[in-house]
């Protein structure tokens, strides 16, 4: 049996890490050291994470189907303007390393985050005691990788600002960029609002 802060009646500060002994007074408590609000678990963690994950999953579709940029030149429209189109462009032009980076960061990472967070949400709602260490590792993975999806937004932003060589060539932002940016932000909000200690609560209650 593992001793936990919850069982000992202590509150861990999410900002500075101090263990606080809660005062008997009612109301929301604040950390004695850094004054951050104290909660036993992140408030509304499951509901919030679900909301962000569902929204991200819906927007993932237009983010990938709509063009992120519109590139035009004297030679006409470029077909490689969606995310996958950009990956294919890098691949066929011989930059396979860049193709892999963009494919992983823009398509694999958001999809993985959504799938893993759904798995974590479902298992903690069902109060599963299945492989808590591995599920915590999965959480650490999705919390870390999410930010790298922004890379496509930055590539687009720089391309749009730099390629203004009218009438020969120009790149303009496409509607997919908004959806794509929203997916990145929503998946990051989702992993921020999920509380990994929910994975461990059923394990600890079983041992009680």
């Amino acid at each position: 049996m593992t001793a936990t802060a919850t069982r000992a009646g202590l509150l861990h500060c999410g900002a500075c890490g101090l263990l606080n002994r809660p005062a008997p007074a009612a109301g929301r408590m604040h950390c004695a050291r850094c004054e951050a609000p104290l909660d036993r678990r992140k408030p509304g963690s499951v509901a919030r994470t679900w909301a962000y994950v569902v929204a991200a999953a819906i927007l993932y579709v237009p983010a990938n189907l709509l063009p992120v940029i519109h590139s035009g030149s004297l030679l006409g429209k470029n077909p490689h303007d969606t995310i996958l189109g950009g990956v294919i462009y890098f691949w066929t032009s011989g930059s396979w390393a860049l193709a892999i980076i963009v494919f992983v960061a823009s398509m694999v990472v958001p999809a993985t985050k959504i799938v893993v967070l759904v798995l974590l949400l479902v298992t903690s709602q069902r109060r599963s005691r299945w492989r808590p260490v591995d599920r915590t590792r999965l959480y650490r993975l999705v919390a870390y990788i999410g930010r790298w999806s922004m890379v496509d937004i930055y590539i687009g932003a720089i391309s749009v600002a730099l390629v203004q060589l009218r009438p020969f060539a120009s790149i303009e932002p496409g509607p997919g960029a908004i959806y794509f940016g929203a997916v990145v932000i929503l998946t990051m909000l989702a992993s921020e609002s999920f509380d990994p200690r929910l994975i461990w609560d059923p394990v600890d209650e079983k041992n009680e």
Partner: protein
Amino acid sequence: MPYPTSPLVACPQCDALQLEPALVPGGSADCVRCGAELYRHKPRSIDRTLAFLLAAAILFLFANLYPLMEMDARGLRSATTLFGTVRALSEQGMPSVGVLVFATALALPVLELAAMIYMLLPLRLGFVPAGLRFAFRLVERVRVWGMVEVLLLGALIAFVKLNDIAVVHPGIALYALAGFVFLLAAADAWYEPRAIWHCARELAS
């Protein structure tokens, strides 16, 4: 108010309660149950973090004042700064994406840098700054949303990609950005909240 301490720590990821072990310099303590890193012993944390932050602040200035890259297509030239990308997105009908780039690549990294210097410089000079706790919580909240390292990767990929269209020259800001990313990562690696509270307690007593 005194800064309380406790010989116990709880894992932020699995709630397991454990004794704080004494660490050898450079050592780290991982949670006994789920393996999350609880903390790391960082000698002279405040000095080192502050040194990297101040150097990073100088480079960030260069990263914003000079062009990131310049393009030359048979006499047609164009160049863009970091803020130029935000302006271009807004002017071409995507202000929301412009705001996203502005926040994650410019505003929030500056805020994080400024708040960290605001905490650490006074502590180094021997006094506790007003609003230390507020600045600390601000840094904790903002840090996830600053993405300059991702911006650097994006700039490098854009550089390769756009070289297919025309000749692209790296600007001073691209080098400055690369240096900034490494210095900020170094500052982050030496940053240790325990050192801040310890220092503030010593100064207050």
